[in-house]
């Protein structure tokens, strides 16, 4: 199956990588004790690993070419099964009912620890869906998304600390503040080209974090704000485990609302304008879409969701500090959107659940978590830029009277 030429190429690749990783993988020095340890076993792993990977990549590309050659006639993108199933009401309703029932029963079936992890994962689902509006639907690469999350978290923390504001009042305030900051940043920045926008948002995210870290009078610096009150429920005092379940249900509710809103938005006039803007700005302007306004709405709407989740985050952990809002957090949320499939709601949900739950349960792998996130971004872009579940644009076809099948 493999010609000798290919094997030779893979052998060259493996030698190249063994050379490439030599100083960093093999040598480890202790500059204080002045000891050098040579870890030759690592070199063997790298060589074998890169050999296998290069063969796999080659096989993939050969197959892809062959498929492209044989199927040239029918290159119509088929919708993934998940979307086709969800389109059918007779599948959709029982399925969503089952998922909802499971979600409601979850805290009673599993321990408080599991519920807590699930709450975190669901918060990332909402964050992913929020960023999906900005990156996936409107095509604006936002690398400082975590800044809005921080705005939400800190607005609840500070309002609670200074004025004793309750969670329910803080939630809309946190969301609106984040959206306001989004508008404030977006207004001057959104006329920039895509890659500049990415860097500016990244810089902005870092500015917010650095200000929170250094402005001690305002945010108590790196030590953060502790003893934030948990959300109340008509003034009833709750036990610790009850409040975990309560926050869980709250997040489930937020997920449902988010899915509903995002889904409605995508097929709205505004949603279609976003898609069009993502595809071609100039054509879009020629069609009479207000570019700045449309982008600004996407940007601030995404920020609003981050703000909401930020408030919940502060209430859940009862403690916020700037270390929770680093660039890596933005990168994780971006990986969720990219892995799941930009623009696809089901994709983003699955992406968030895999990326957050998997490292939790595979503790041995959690050390390699960030390494994997980085690799996912690269691999997905090269092999499957549309994500696990691709979002095929909704198309409408003329329905013939006689045909029973509608697409």
């Amino acid at each position, binding site marked *: 199956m493999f010609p000798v030429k290919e094997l030779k190429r893979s052998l060259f690749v493996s030698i190249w990588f063994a050379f490439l990783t030599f100083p960093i993988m093999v040598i480890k020095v202790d500059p204080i004790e002045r000891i050098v340890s040579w870890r030759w076993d690592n070199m063997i792993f790298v060589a074998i690993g890169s050999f296998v990977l290069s063969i796999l990549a080659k096989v993939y590309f050969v197959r892809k070419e062959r498929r492209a050659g044989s199927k040239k006639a029918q290159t119509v993108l088929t919708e993934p099964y998940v979307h086709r199933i969800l389109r059918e009401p007779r599948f959709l309703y029982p399925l969503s009912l089952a998922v909802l029932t499971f979600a409601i029963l979850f805290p009673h079936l599993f321990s408080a620890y599991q519920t807590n992890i699930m709450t975190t994962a669901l918060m990332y689902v909402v964050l992913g869906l929020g960023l999906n509006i900005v990156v996936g639907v409107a095509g604006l690469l936002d690398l400082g998304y975590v800044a809005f999350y921080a705005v939400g978290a800190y607005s609840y923390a500070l309002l609670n600390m200074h004025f004793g504001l309750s969670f329910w009042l803080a939630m809309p305030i946190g969301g609106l503040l984040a959206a306001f900051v989004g508008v404030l940043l977006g207004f001057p920045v959104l006329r920039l080209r895509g890659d500049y926008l990415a860097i500016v948002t990244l810089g902005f995210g870092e500015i917010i974090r650095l200000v929170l870290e*250094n402005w001690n009078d305002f945010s108590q610096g790196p030590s953060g704000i502790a003893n934030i009150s948990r959300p109340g429920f008509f003034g009833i005092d709750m036990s610790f485990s009850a409040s975990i379940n309560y926050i869980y249900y709250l997040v489930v509710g937020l997920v449902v609302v988010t899915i509903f809103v995002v889904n409605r938005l995508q097929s709205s006039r505004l949603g279609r304008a976003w898609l069009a803007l993502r595809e071609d700005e100039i054509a879009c302007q020629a069609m009479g879409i207000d570019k700045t306004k449309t982008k600004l709405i996407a940007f601030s709407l995404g920020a609003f969701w981050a703000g909401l989740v930020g408030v919940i985050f502060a209430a859940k952990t009862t403690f916020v500090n700037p270390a929770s809002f680093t660039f890596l957090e933005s990168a994780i949320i971006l990986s969720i959107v990219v892995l799941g499939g930009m623009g696809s709601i089901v994709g983003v949900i699955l992406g968030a659940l895999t990326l957050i739950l998997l490292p939790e349960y595979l503790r041995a792998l959690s050390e390699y978590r960030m390494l994997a996130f*980085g690799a*996912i971004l690269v691999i997905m872009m090269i092999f499957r830029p549309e994500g696990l579940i691709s979002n095929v644009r909704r198309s409408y076809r003329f329905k013939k009277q006689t045909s029973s099948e509608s697409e």
Partner: protein
Amino acid sequence: MDYFIELLFGGLTRGSIYALIALGYTMVYGIIGLINFAHGEIYMIGAFTSFIVATVLSIYGFPLLAIVVIAALAAAVWSSAYGVTIEKIAYRPLRHAPRLSPLISAIGMSIFLQNYVLLAQTSDFLPFPALIPEFAFMEPVAHIVGSSDLVILITTTLVMFALTLLIKFTRIGKAMRATAQDRTMAMLVGINVDRVISATFVIGSALAALGGMLIASHIGQINFYIGFLAGIKAFTAAVLGGIGSIPGAVLGSLVLGLTESFATGYVSSDYEDVFAFSLLVLILIFKPSGLLGKAETKKV
């Protein structure tokens, strides 16, 4: 006055290191129009390689001059190798993809490399051996200008000069300029564009590695995370000068270095990084084409 001169030299040193990194950004951007997000990581790997090589050699008792030369060469060689490999794996397959794809891939690569070094080495700050000795003739002014400042300034000036010659007069330099102007046209006149792109990555990475080694020796410690901040700041410098323009990158870096140095010296050192980021945001808002860049007009 002494304080002013100290800050001035501090700023120039800083700026010349930024320039070494910013050149890589600006050259790559000029040729393939991509913000090479992983460039900061190349710089970090250069610093790490020189750290490892220098420490090993000093344990085995090599003389200082040999250590400096070998460490610099090793850093340049391995960083270039990383640069070329990254381009092959993460950017080349995406050359015709939509604009956001290579950028996301570059961000992924940057996160991957950071964690690769973190896992293969350590997350602690490591003491970097002092590669630049304290010169005796610098004694009278040592409290204002350190020996390493002087070495960094001289080295970067020489490197910039060599780079200018390379780009102006050599065959590969001409090919690079041609590719930057118009890639398709360059291909039509028989330039091997893939090789030009690889050469750009080699030069950019080697410069970044040299910068990494110099600054690590100047500051005296390294860590896997140094590339992130340095990368963003160098990018700021490149944008400030006008991305794609080589003299612009140098000018922008010096302006940024001086701004940071004076701002931390006279205003507040807590917000050192905020100044750079604010400068970046301000330039992109008010003058996205930079000091020496040409405004990009898009034809439909």
